[in-house]
């Protein structure tokens, strides 16, 4: 019966229902987008972190035992995830693969010119700096190349985006609570006569409150589903472009389990948000 009353209330005031669903949709659209951005950027950082992000080239006169001992000392630090030695021969193969379309370049380069190297992958991106410091003081190392700038820029962008996202979501949640509260308040004052009569004929406080609270939860759920659907469709639409932009980074295809999990979490949050905001209004207006 209470559910029936709730649905009737929604049907009888479509504009208020539209406004409530709109603000909830907007809130969950932003939540979904920022979730995609944060999960995506975290995958990009993970990708770079898991890649051999630092390469140390050895001098030609370097002895194998010195290289081996350097490898061992690096492996013994807790900061290194893996160390891969690339010999002069392997370096030539890589060079040939990279320049297979230019025979002139292939003719000019021999195994002797190319240095041997180690590709080091760090446990944490922050450890690259200290690994770099260890290598630069070593006498057999001629040059060090690493993507410190790319990763640190990406990390700071991700942190900034996270903060903006959290800030925006907090603002939208507060706005949603206020708007939902106002809408519930308007509905209560429109139904003042009904409420008065129901109280006089023996309705308990909860019998009167519950339809308003369920209505808030309903708007929350519908808003969450719409917000999620818009964000997911946009992501799906933008996937081909993003895929070519991100190239080797294994983000696509997006896992449907991840999307369904996100929807589930958003629905739970939406129920809590809708219930909470309408409950506040009910307490305020139905004293």
């Amino acid at each position: 019966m209470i559910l029936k009353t709730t649905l009737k209330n929604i049907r009888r005031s479509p504009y208020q229902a539209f406004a409530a669903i709109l603000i909830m949709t907007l809130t969950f659209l932003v939540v979904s987008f920022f979730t995609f951005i944060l999960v995506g950027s975290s995958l990009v950082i993970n990708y770079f972190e898991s890649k051999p992000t630092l390469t140390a080239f050895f001098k030609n006169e370097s002895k194998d035992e010195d290289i081996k001992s350097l490898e061992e000392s690096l492996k013994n630090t807790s900061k290194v995830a893996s160390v891969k030695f690339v010999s002069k021969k392997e370096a030539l193969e890589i060079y040939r693969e990279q320049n297979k379309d230019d025979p002139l370049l292939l003719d000019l380069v021999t195994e002797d010119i190319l240095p041997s190297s180690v590709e080091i992958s760090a446990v944490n991106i922050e450890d690259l700096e200290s690994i770099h410091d260890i290598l630069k003081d070593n006498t057999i190392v001629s040059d060090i190349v690493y993507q410190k700038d790319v990763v640190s820029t990406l990390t700071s962008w991700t942190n900034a985006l996270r903060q903006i996202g959290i800030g925006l979501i907090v603002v939208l949640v507060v706005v949603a609570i206020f708007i939902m509260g106002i809408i519930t308040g308007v509905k209560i004052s429109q139904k003042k006569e009904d409420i008065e009569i129901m109280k006089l004929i023996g309705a308990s406080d909860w019998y009167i409150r519950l339809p308003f609270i369920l209505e808030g939860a309903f708007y929350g759920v519908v808003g969450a589903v719409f917000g999620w659907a818009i964000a997911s469709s946009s992501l799906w639409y933008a996937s081909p472009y993003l895929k070519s932009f991100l190239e080797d980074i294994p983000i696509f295809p997006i896992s449907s389990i991840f999307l369904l999990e996100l929807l589930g979490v958003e629905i739970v949050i939406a129920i809590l948000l809708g219930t909470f905001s309408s409950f506040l209004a009910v307490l305020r207006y139905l004293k």
Partner: protein
Amino acid sequence: MIRLQKVSKKFGTGEFGLESLDIFVDKGEFVFLTGRVGAGKTTVFKLITRELLPTEGSIVVDNLDIVKLPYGKIPHLRKKIGVVFQDLKILMDRTIFENVILPLQVAGVKEKLAEQKVQEVLEKVGIIDHKDKFPVQLSGGQLQRTAIARALVMSPPILLADEPTGNLDIETAFEIVALLQEINKQGTTIIMATHNKEIVDKNKKRIVTLHKGRLVKDESPSKNEEKKGGSKKINDS
């Protein structure tokens, strides 16, 4: 069944709505509560339904001390009392059927049973043919019957009717009183507030008269009869 003892009600303005009022209404009685406008008739009803709390005194309804009744138990009390409000309090955006079924829905009665009960009560008050109409489509008397049907649908042991003939022509007013008497015969205790002298005089019922919040007369049916025969005895108990 209903006992008001030394009940006073002082409003925020400092005026007394009721002053030291003693009324006892027994089970199955039909009582006319009379008095001029502002005498305190509606205040008595509001006190019995715990819409208001008395400033002093005690009120017992069906063995429930309603002054001490916890707030959460008020709905329980109100389900025992059917009220026909002075301003009817009919919801204009609902059909007659939807208005009458409301107390049953509030009480959580199953839909089938509730519909059956509404059907029965609408037949009893004589507006079954209008059940799907909206209040604006009904006459004053039919609306009054709707209000009575809503008050009766829960089969309450007590019915309070506040000026149920207020805006009706005399013929319809008598029809409404006849309906209430019929309901009373089936065991419902009824208190009907009215200032219509003609209705009160023509029915041989107990009359409780208030004036400025005080009890000035309490005439039993026999005394009422005697009065019609010329006696002016007043029972002040």
